[in-house]
């Protein structure tokens, strides 16, 4: 399946991927609207920085995903593309997935009420290429099928 | 039947005589002792039959739409230039740039032809030009070709594989049909070889039959062979080479 591959050698730490991600996951997908939202969507990729190293990191969509296995109420599933998706409507924030994620790419979002939500990359189901990849000005993210 | 002796006639006078004959209702004209007079048949629209004995000059049948011209011998350059309809049959060889921008009608040549045969030949709506060459062509056959059919029969050579540089260079429409195999090294950049389909053959069968009849060639022998089809790989071969100058 196609996956976002990370090229740390090309990441320039601009973090536009994070921006593109939260804009994509906002209701209007308008950059200024998204910025002005009271509770901004959480970016699902995050730029890990320790200069000169920097890289935008997001879910690897494991073939045998430990997070999916660990989920206590079946809120994580694979969609038809093979992407590992969190059903944010049913997630209860038990963080089992976080505990099992080998990459540390699932984030906690506790801003929405009683239950926390595990937030992670969904490979932008509404787009041909994920927003982070499209937004990367330096080709540090590649949307590619390497099996 | 009108007979014209063209010996030492300047082309303008000869062509005047031909037009006079056509205007006075002649539908069969024979021209003897033709030596290089230009523009025979230029712009003629009537369904006349013109027999040429000798060697007609350049631009034979240019802008023609209707007549049938029979050349009993060789012909020179620029035959059927921008021709719209009618037929030219050459019982010999012909020169360069045959069928340039031809839009309709047929040209049948028994022997070899020169460079840039059918350059920029095109078809439009019902107009569909057919050119059949009995021998071989010079380089750049079918250059810029945009429509119609060029058939190369290569009847007189021993070599089974057709080899002629830059076939179909810049071709973006129409088809070239070659009897036998084609050396892919000799193709232009924009074309590819595919196998001939039954419907391609049906499309030209009638014309091949006519060709063989006109030039007294054994149709069955011709049809026994295998054919190769050359078509353009895309109808916009240079799309990516040009960009909008105001792109951001």
């Amino acid at each position: 399946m196609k996956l976002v591959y990370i090229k740390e050698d090309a990441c320039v730490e601009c973090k536009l991927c994070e921006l593109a991600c939260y804009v994509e996951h906002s209701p209007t997908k308008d950059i200024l609207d998204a910025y002005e939202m009271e509770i901004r969507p959480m970016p699902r990729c995050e730029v890990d920085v320790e200069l000169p190293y920097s890289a935008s990191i997001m879910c690897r969509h494991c073939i045998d995903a430990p997070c999916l296995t660990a989920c206590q109420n079946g809120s994580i599933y694979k969609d038809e593309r093979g992407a590992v998706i969190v059903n944010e409507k049913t997630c209860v924030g038990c963080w089992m997935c976080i505990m099992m994620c080998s990459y540390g790419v699932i984030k906690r979002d506790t801003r929405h009420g009683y239950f926390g939500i595990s937030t992670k990359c969904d490979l932008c189901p509404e787009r041909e290429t994920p927003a982070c990849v499209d937004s990367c000005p330096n080709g540090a993210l590649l949307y590619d099928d390497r099996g | 039947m009108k007979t014209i002796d063209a010996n030492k006639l300047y082309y303008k006078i000869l062509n005047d005589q031909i037009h006079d004959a056509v205007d006075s209702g002649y539908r069969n004209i024979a021209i003897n002792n033709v030596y290089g007079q230009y523009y025979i048949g230029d712009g003629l629209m009537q369904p006349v039959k013109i027999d040429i004995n000798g060697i007609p000059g350049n631009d034979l049948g240019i802008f023609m739409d209707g007549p049938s011209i029979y050349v009993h011998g060789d012909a020179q350059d620029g035959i059927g230039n921008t021709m719209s309809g009618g037929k030219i049959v050459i019982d010999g060889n012909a020169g360069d740039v045959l069928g340039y921008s031809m839009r309709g009608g047929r040209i049948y040549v028994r022997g070899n032809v020169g460079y840039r045969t059918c350059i920029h030949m095109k078809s439009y709506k019902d107009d569909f030009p057919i050119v059949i060459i009995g021998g071989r062509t010079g380089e750049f056959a079918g250059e810029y070709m945009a429509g119609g059919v060029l058939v190369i029969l290569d009847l007189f050579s021993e070599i089974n594989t057709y080899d002629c540089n830059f076939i179909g260079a810049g071709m973006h429409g129409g088809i070239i049909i070659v009897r036998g195999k084609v050396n892919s090294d000799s193709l232009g950049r924009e074309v590819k070889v595919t196998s001939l389909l039954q419907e391609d053959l049906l499309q030209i069968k009638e014309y091949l039959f006519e060709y063989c009849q006109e030039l007294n060639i054994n149709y069955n022998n011709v049809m026994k062979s295998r054919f190769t089809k050359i078509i353009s790989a895309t109808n916009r071969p240079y799309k990516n080479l040009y960009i909008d100058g105001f792109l951001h």
Partner: protein
Amino acid sequence: MFINVSNNLPRDISGCGISGFINTNGRRSSGRACVDSICMMRDRGNGLGAGFAVYGAYPEFRNYYAIHIIYQDNKAREETEEYLSTKLSIVQRGGIPTKKTKNIQSRPLFFVYFGKPRAQSDVAEIDEFREDQEDEFIVRLAMKINENIKGAYVISSGKNLGVFKGIGFPEDIAEMFMIDDYKGYCWIAHNRYPTNTPGWWGGAHPFSVLDWSVVHNGEISSYGINKRYLEMFKYNLNLKTDTEVISYLLDLLVRRHGLSLKEAALAFAPPFWTQIEKMNTDQKNKIEKIRRIYGSAMLNGPFAILVGFKGGLMGLSDRIKLRPLVVGQKGDTTYMASEESAIVGVVKELDRIWSPNAGEPVIAKLKPAVSARLFGKSNKTVRV
């Protein structure tokens, strides 16, 4: 000076006509066939230039350089003759016979001089190639006259050869020079349609230096660099016509650099690199060498040329054949022309008639025995 200012004829897209033939047994014939042939291609010219070169024109002076010069006036003639007398020992001189014709109103003076170099001291400085000292002397002489003497132009300077050319249709020029009265074993003719160069007497074809004479249909788009290349070898190009470079290039490449005629043809119209890549190593090396050394001698742009040379005739078209050339053969005579009708119209029942491929030289050479008879055994002819 010789420029025809009344050049108001409508411009048709056509081009020049060229025609020529050679009898490989050296049989001399009148120029009638050549005149007829070039005249059949009337529409390839516009009356602004025509000319003929006749090989074998002066058998009685075949060991002397036959120098044809046109003069604007007698002043130029006097100046030239004074200069010539210091350089040449002249055995015969005189006006080239002409006759009055209806269509040619004004004309310059035509003179021919037969002679040999008087001294060879001038050439010592430039003797860097294995070249014939006398030939080199004559080339320099012609250049000097063309360059330095106002109103005088050397139009041919070979042995046993004459060039007759001027402004007019070929039939008029033929009539004026009484071409029918000359006999030659090789003829070339030109019917001119000048475009970017002035229609003046000196600019008519054939262009000739020593035994080279060239008629040309087309334009040499590489003229600028060909000229600059030749200038490095001390050729002065002042005839204002692109064709001029061809005769000098032949002189440089073949006579001075020792290339064969076919190698020179390769330099003029080489195959494309893509084609060269497909060749065997020897061929590839050879052509690559020629292309790289003689890139500046490549003739680029549309052309078909006939080249008369010492002992033969060559036809050549450009590398993508933008100009026509047809070759016919009957017995020991080879015909070349722009149009098939121009051959078929003058010769019946040819043995063979064909169009050579782009860049493919067609060379007809005198038979060795004939060559030996004409030029003497020691006198080298051109290597083909």
